């Protein structure tokens, strides 16, 4: 039985990855998860310099999900290279570094600093809804998506994953733009912009007013976008958004994802990524699937 998948020449032992920002750099979760059993660890977004992020409250629970407005707090690329990459190198898993920035130059600085690092892939976050500059601004206009993709590709030494925002009219337009810019892989979806109001105090629950919605509540939207994108581009897709169980992961794969990232579910169960990897194997056994790649995009009509 083959569970391994290929993303732009990088072979993951299984399709289960962590969603950026929900797993730190793996250190804290390594007490709950054997990182060797994951296809890849995707780190929290890192910028050229340390960012302090937003004021608190930064998270709020909503029905079947959560809002976050962490605002990309991160220690900056220097400390990241010094501390987080060596930590992850101890494990037999792929290392994918999520990159954020306020300007194109910020992104490129991080990409260049990572060029000689033992990092397997770069995931470029152009879809964070929680920062004023950069982030989502790059991800809601196809021309901007193509331009930043091209700029990153020109400098990157590792394969480049572009991470797309669901807060758009047509996800396939953004996907095609990233593909045209030379993206090797696409990640989708980032969070949907949401808001929660405290009706007792009549104030916004989050200091940032809006936050990015994640968790099982957004899963059907993510599945739809992965499906649409898989019809529209030739490059592989990493599917994410509300994956809580192996079943959810398989749904995403059937919709067209080559690999999946698990985010908010880590908060509901810190060992969930390992359990999902096991569950996928079980499903393959029960359904006599010899190679996971047979499942990618294998959904069909009823009749």
């Amino acid at each position, binding site marked *: 039985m083959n569970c391994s998948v290929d993303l732009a020449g990088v072979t993951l032992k299984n399709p289960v990855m962590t969603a950026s*920002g929900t797993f730190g750099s793996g250190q804290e979760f*390594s007490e709950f998860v054997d990182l060797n059993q994951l296809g890849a660890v995707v780190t929290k977004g890192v910028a050229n310099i*340390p960012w302090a992020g937003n004021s608190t*409250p930064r998270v*709020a*629970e909503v029905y*079947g999900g*959560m809002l976050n407005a962490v605002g990309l707090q991160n220690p900056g690329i220097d400390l990241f290279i010094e501390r987080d990459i060596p930590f992850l190198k101890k494990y037999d898993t792929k290392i994918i570094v999520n990159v954020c920035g306020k300007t194109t130059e910020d992104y490129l600085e991080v990409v260049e600093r990572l060029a000689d690092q033992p990092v397997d892939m770069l995931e470029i976050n152009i879809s964070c809804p929680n920062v004023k500059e950069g982030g989502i601004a790059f991800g809601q206009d196809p021309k901007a998506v193509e331009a930043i993709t091209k700029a990153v590709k020109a400098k990157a030494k590792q394969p480049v994953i572009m991470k797309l925002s669901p807060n758009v009219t047509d996800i396939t337009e953004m996907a095609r733009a990233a593909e045209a810019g030379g993206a090797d892989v696409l990640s989708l979806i980032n969070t949907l912009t949401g808001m929660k109001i405290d009706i007792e105090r009549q104030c916004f629950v989050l200091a940032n007013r809006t936050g990015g919605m994640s968790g099982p509540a957004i899963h059907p939207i993510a599945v739809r976008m992965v499906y649409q994108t898989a019809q529209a581009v030739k490059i592989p897709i990493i599917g994410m958004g509300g994956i809580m169980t192996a079943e959810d992961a398989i749904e995403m794969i059937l919709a067209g994802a080559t690999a999946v990232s698990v985010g908010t579910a*880590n908060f*509901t169960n810190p060992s969930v990524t390992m359990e999902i990897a096991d569950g996928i194997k079980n499903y393959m056994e029960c359904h006599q699937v010899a190679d996971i790649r047979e499942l990618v995009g294998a959904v069909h009509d009823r009749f």
Partner: protein
Amino acid sequence: MAEKAKETAIIIDQKELLPGIFDMWLRTEKIAKEAKAGQFVSVYCHDGSRILPRPISICEIDKEDGAIRLVYRVAGKGTEEFSKMRTGMHLQLVGPLGNGFPKKEKKAFLIGGGIGIPPMLELAKELNCEKQIILGFRDEMFLMDDLKKQGSVYVATEDGSAGTEGNVLDAIRENGLDADIIYACGPLPMLRAIKEYAAEKQIECWISMEERMACGIGACLACVCKSKERDEHSNVKNKRICKEGPVFRAEEVEF
């Protein structure tokens, strides 16, 4: 390689101490074994519409029996769900989490306000020193019998219905108390006043902080508070309450 996991705890007993304040004993061997005063556990809801854990401080630890005690106020849907559970039912926990209180052998104030009182009980049990326990209540009191066994207890109530009318500092002043170290947990305004008091009197002061959490284990950066100095882990002036805290030196953090 993964030595920790969610633990399924069994409810040994639950009762309502005061309207809306519940007292629950849970059998949970591993957590009870490792836990110490000032740490907390993440408690998970059964209802699928609530996906984040609820952080609750450990009020008491029974190492022999492999049990912990949680005392909590019904604040919303999650704690309401817990409050309806009965002996024999299961709850999933992760923990113990956070750093806990440092234990020094110095004449101490243990100050608790409202629902910040429960962690003071285990702290009092673990501390080996002269303990003055100062408690602030809105009106009705709880956990008094347990705390009285651990040291001399002084009370302040907002409405003056018991002890000193006013806040915990009023009670300290009214009773002419002094100490060499302060441990405190409670609402922010109380912690602010204590921080100021400790600075003025130059007393070592440890406070337990609260913030909305998601992961509870230091990975998501939801639960930060501002720190005076650049934090070693975050590389900015932010500390994770769930990881570097919830207990901080008062002068370390800004709030």
